[in-house]
């Protein structure tokens, strides 16, 4: 599932790393872009005076990398920061990221910061966590072997802004503002020609409370795939004495409408899963 943004307000992510050229970091940057984020890399560069904006990078060529990174935050007002704990192999640089983190928190305690550590455990992480716990900050940790999808999910949760469009698998797109669900054609492209999905065929049957149910499930999935949406959060979209039966009927109708739009019959474990009288959750369709 990806997020598609028509305008990038609040989607800029500052990436502060001394090695953004590694294949692993490139995959993270690509995943951020695919999710509608605008990564802007702050990296140390060759010796010289001042900084120069190179494409989507700010190459810091002076000695005071820390000051430049902080200046970039003030200048570009990102929605979040990805910060490496470790800068280089020198002993003094092992926790340089923590020093930068401390300054970021001092200036803007509300700014979400996701820190890259070597491993999920170990003295480096312990020191990083201990260094961070001193601050009442919005800070989280992820190790460098994490998948790009994991990094994106962490950022989504930390930033917490509602998406402008939510794509569910390859087949469906939900537009919360317009309250429309689209069945996306595999061949559709947008005007810019970058291949991003555009509204395909609108599914008119999903409106009102049915749209409310689907949006609640899709929003939960966007932030935390696998997390159940309990009945308590869905009952407001039901009517009558037996709210669960009412919900069951509406969800059946949603699945029928979405299945019809893509010529596929959706079974009990397809798209919207019921978990033993506790609630529902969204699961993108698997290939047939």
């Amino acid at each position, binding site marked *: 599932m990806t997020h598609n943004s028509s305008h990038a307000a609040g989607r800029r992510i500052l990436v502060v790393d001394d090695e953004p050229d*590694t294949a692993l970091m490139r*995959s993270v940057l690509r995943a951020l872009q695919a999710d509608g984020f605008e990564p802007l890399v702050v990296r140390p560069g060759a010796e010289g005076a001042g900084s120069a904006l190179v494409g989507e990078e700010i190459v810091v060529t002076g000695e005071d990398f820390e000051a430049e990174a902080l200046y970039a935050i003030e200048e570009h007002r990102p929605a979040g920061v990805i910060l490496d704990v470790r800068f280089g192999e020198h002993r003094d640089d092992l926790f340089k990221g923590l020093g930068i983190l401390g300054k970021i928190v001092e200036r803007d305690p509300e700014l979400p910061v996701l820190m890259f550590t*070597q491993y*999920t*455990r170990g003295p480096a992480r312990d020191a990083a966590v201990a260094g961070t716990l001193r601050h009442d900050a919005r800070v989280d940790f992820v190790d460098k*072997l994490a998948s790009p*999808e994991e990094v994106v999910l962490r950022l989504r949760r930390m930033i917490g802004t509602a998406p402008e469009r939510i794509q569910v698998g390859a087949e469906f797109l939900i537009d919360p503002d317009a309250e429309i669900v689209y069945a996306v054609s595999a061949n559709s492209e947008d005007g810019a020609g970058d291949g991003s999905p555009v509204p395909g065929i609108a599914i008119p049957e999903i409106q009102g409370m049915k749209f409310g149910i689907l949006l609640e499930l899709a929003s939960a999935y966007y932030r935390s795939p*696998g*997390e159940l949406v309990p009945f308590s959060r869905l009952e407001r979209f039901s009517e009558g004495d037996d709210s669960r039966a009412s919900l069951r009927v509406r969800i059946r109708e949603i699945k029928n409408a979405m299945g019809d739009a893509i010529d596929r019959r959706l079974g009990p474990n397809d798209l919207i899963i019921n978990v033993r009288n506790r609630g529902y959750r969204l699961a993108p369709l*698997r290939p047939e």
Partner: protein
Amino acid sequence: MTPEKPERLARLWRYGRYFAAAVAFVGLLLIVVSPVLGDNASEKLWLIEPIAYIGGILLAAGSVLVAVTYIATERAVATPPGDSRQEWSRLTREYFDLFGHDLGRPLRRILGRARDARVRIDESGRNPDPALSELIDEIEQQAPTFRLMVSNVQVLIELENPAAEPEIEATDPARVIRNIVDRYSGIAGDRGAEITWWSEPEEFGVVYADPAALDHVVTNLVDNAVNHVNEHIEIRLTRNPTHFFVRVWDDGDGIPASYLPHVFDRGWTPEAAGRQERSSSGLGLFIARALARRCDGDVTLESVAAPGEDHHTEATIMLPLLERPG
């Protein structure tokens, strides 16, 4: 023996050594000065011989004492009972960190290249060779396994350290589980399975626990479930007045009743019982339980291996609801 005792003993021997050295020095001094005394005070010539003798005795005694106290001091410092294991643990951990760092770098490169290869295949617009896609999938899927393996080795070292204590801090268990589900959802999906999780109550709140230990125990159990699941894994976070619980349920084929008493044994695997090649180290459940017990909790396992649709395995982590430390 308390840690202070060997220290005090070593100090005592060290002072004894200084005293012995002083005695030997006085002895040497007496031998040296005895002829001088004799020359300068001819009327006291009779003193030369006894002073030289006394000096000789003091020198010899002092030297022997220096040797004895030196050996005793070194032994007291080098091998105090109880400290040697801590020293070993500390050194092993240091070596491990160096090794882990060196190992992590090439692994990150391999993983990064695999992801680059996937992008290039996607951008080429051609249908890739299925074997190539499988290869890339395999490399990517091994990353969480490697992360867990590295952590497991580290936890094993920590468990060997008798002085290690759980590090209790404010912890959001829902956040811990959410992050683990992020990590494993993709792998489960590639194997045709789903992970669903929820907490009761819905707003679970903060508990005081060792977050690294909780993360590690749940990760081991989820990793286990992902390796044996058929279609569904369910993770449930609950609490009672004294404890909180994480239950990891999977609809895998289940564990035969005869195996259940052994699953927490160190290094035990079903293949080991059948003398076949091992599919895993057999350390995951052992580590999970040892870590939970160090936090005054436990891990238990319930499994049904019946034919039909009823087979499942449920691992339950139980940890105490601690008071706020300090």
